[in-house]
């Protein structure tokens, strides 16, 4: 009995408390909803020049460099949101389709941007490419890359980087070897290094299987040329064509030269044996410099993959990064203004210097004399080449990249099944093109 009374007496007040708590909570939630909707709408309608910059830059130094640039932007408030690349990739469609889309987004030039433009999700940025616009002086290759199917410009390229075979000058000196100038010399170099007990080439395929496409792209560019490569990636040729078989035969000859552990390395881990002088060369992008300890970065040098078939034009891979603007945003003028600012020669120069990465400027007006010798050599490489491609996924699609990852990983493990692997690759690719 005493138990009952002790429970029932405070019960009334407790019940009231609970009811009050629930009401308060609900009211708070409702208020929060209302608050954000009206806030968002008001900000857009007022058109105060507030702009959101959604970007996928993750590396610390480039991110800090972009933040500094954005902070110095004179045209108004910019909210900069950095999202991890893979999440950004997954959410990009949502961002662009949202009713209140971010004004400016970072992404890749080429087929990915074009497919969003086809859906009408991208803002026409041709004003920047005309007259004295920020992009008017950019090269024709960049203009072509940033143009959609209807001939409008929908992309603003701000930097690019190059792929090449990187090596350490001090290590080559120690082993008494020189960078090769022909394909036969390259093979001789690999033989020589193998004989000295050094893995001639490193690569990292574990969580970055797309690294295997680097050699595929380059061998295809050297054997069949850039034109064929683009057509192949656009579905106009088959992956089991004799031309591709030739490429894979060359790839097969390289397999013994790779580090035996390459399937367990990521692209970043793969630089460690090179830092320790256990492997010699690495075909990768210029971002490789950030894989090395600070005191080894000046020791890095590179040479282009030597010519195999001298009847095809020279070509290099140079993935281009930049920004596009969402058609669904509230502040189109703000987006164009911010894009002009980011594409200007001064901004590009400041970004490249502060980001400490080996990026190249897209604007011809950037003063490159203060850049590192490695970057200068990269600029020279790209200005002397006849054709420029992006990279497998950027020249095709992420879906086709997945088929390449499967096929090439298998090929590297069991090269003797090359024919059947190519047949399966073609079947998978047809599925991608059909969808």
């Amino acid at each position, binding site marked *: 009995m*005493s*138990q*009952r009374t*002790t*429970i*029932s007496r405070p*019960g009334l007040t*407790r*019940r009231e408390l*609970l009811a009050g708590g*629930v009401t308060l*909570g609900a009211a708070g*939630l409702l208020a*929060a*909803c209302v608050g*954000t*909707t009206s806030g*968002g709408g008001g900000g857009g309608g007022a058109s105060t020049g507030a702009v959101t910059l*959604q970007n*996928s*830059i*993750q*590396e*610390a130094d480039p991110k*800090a460099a972009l933040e500094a640039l954005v902070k110095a932007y004179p045209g108004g408030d910019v*909210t*900069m*949101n*950095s*999202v*991890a*690349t*893979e*999440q950004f990739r*997954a*959410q990009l469609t*949502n*961002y662009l389709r*949202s*009713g*209140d889309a*971010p004004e400016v987004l970072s992404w890749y030039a080429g087929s990915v941007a074009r497919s969003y433009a086809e859906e009408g999700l991208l803002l026409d940025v041709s004003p920047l490419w005309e007259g004295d616009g920020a992009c008017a002086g950019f090269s024709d290759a960049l203009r072509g890359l940033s143009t959609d199917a209807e001939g409008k410009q929908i992309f603003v390229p701000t930097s690019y980087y190059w792929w090449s075979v990187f090596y350490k000058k001090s290590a080559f000196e120690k082993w008494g070897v020189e960078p090769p100038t022909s394909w036969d010399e390259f093979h001789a170099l690999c033989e020589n290094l193998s004989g000295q007990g050094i893995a001639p080439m490193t690569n990292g395929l574990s969580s970055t299987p797309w690294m295997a496409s680097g050699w595929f792209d380059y061998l295809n560019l050297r054997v069949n040329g850039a034109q064929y490569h683009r057509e192949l990636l656009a579905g106009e040729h088959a992956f089991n064509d004799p031309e591709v078989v030739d490429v894979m035969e060359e790839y097969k000859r390289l397999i013994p030269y790779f580090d035996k552990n390459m399937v367990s390395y990521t*692209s*970043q*881990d793969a*630089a*460690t044996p090179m*830092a*320790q002088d256990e492997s010699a060369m690495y075909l990768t*992008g210029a*971002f490789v410099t*950030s*894989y*090395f*300890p*600070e*005191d*080894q970065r000046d020791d890095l040098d590179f040479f282009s993959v030597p010519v195999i078939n001298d009847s095809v034009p020279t070509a290099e891979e140079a993935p281009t990064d930049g920004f596009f603007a969402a058609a669904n945003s509230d502040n189109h003028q703000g987006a164009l203004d911010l894009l002009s600012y980011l594409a200007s020669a001064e901004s590009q120069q400041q970004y490249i210097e502060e980001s400490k990465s080996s990026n190249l400027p897209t604007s011809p007006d950037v003063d490159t004399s203060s850049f590192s010798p490695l970057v200068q050599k990269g600029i020279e490489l790209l200005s002397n080449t006849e054709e420029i491609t992006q990279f497998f996924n950027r020249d095709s699609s992420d879906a086709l990249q997945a088929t390449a990852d499967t096929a090439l990983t298998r090929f590297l493990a069991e090269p003797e099944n090359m024919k059947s692997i190519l047949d399966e690759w073609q079947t998978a690719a047809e599925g991608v093109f059909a969808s």
Partner: protein
Amino acid sequence: MTTLAPPVTPSVAARRNRRRRPRAARSPWLHVAMIPVTLLWLSPIVFVLFVAIRSYDDIAARGLGALPASFSTDGFATALTDGGVLEALGNSVVVTAWAVFLSLALSSVAAYALSRFAIPGRRTILLTMLAGNLLPPQILLVPVAAITEAIGIADTRTALVIVQVGFGIGFYTFVLHGFMRSLPTEVFEAARLDGAGPGGIFWRIVLPLSRPSLAALAALATTWIFNDLIWAMTVLRTESKFPITAALLNLQGGFASAWNVVAAGSLIAAIPTAIVFFMFQKQFVSGLLVGANK
């Protein structure tokens, strides 16, 4: 209930003590087996700790797996300042606290109604709620993004709380339903005779009796919601609202990762869940058995 508790505890404790002593003589073998297993279990954490206290140059030159040749707290400093780990932790704590409180409040009411009242089709209701949990969240990402967008709560922490509550509630209701159904009918009859209405019974009888299962669910829900990434990325897009999981991903580079910073950030991010675990250790174990003794 509280008046009954004190006399019981000492006797139980005494009984346990008496039992434990003879077992202690046999236990060395258990420890001989368990210590290596424990060390094996801890090795990944030790590995992360080793990575966190090395400098980037050391990691780049000698590889991730090498023993530390350098000591630096740069990783922690960078994670806390540039990485925004503290702000993100705050977001996570707020979202988790609200989501756990609301989902348990709502699901206990729902479970009470479904288990104690003859609601038509209650079995179907319960199974529908549970069935929602069997859907992989990935196929619901686009609809959820579209719905939050349509009702104008996209990119708010409120939306994240609502989504978390919505997706958790089915499972919590199912578990609490099983528990509440097993409460003896006599208690309810006695309460009704004493004049308690449905609300009174819920507040004074059902909730106190369900405390163990509520605590177990709270412990589980806290870790699930705290560690969630997929909903946060679907609902939020402003960096300053990101929870810790998304902030940790941002610490990782697109091409190159400063592993010492990532490892330091992960260790910091693990602290709140570790605290919750040690506080609710007992409930965690019983939480794993939730539903087993239905």
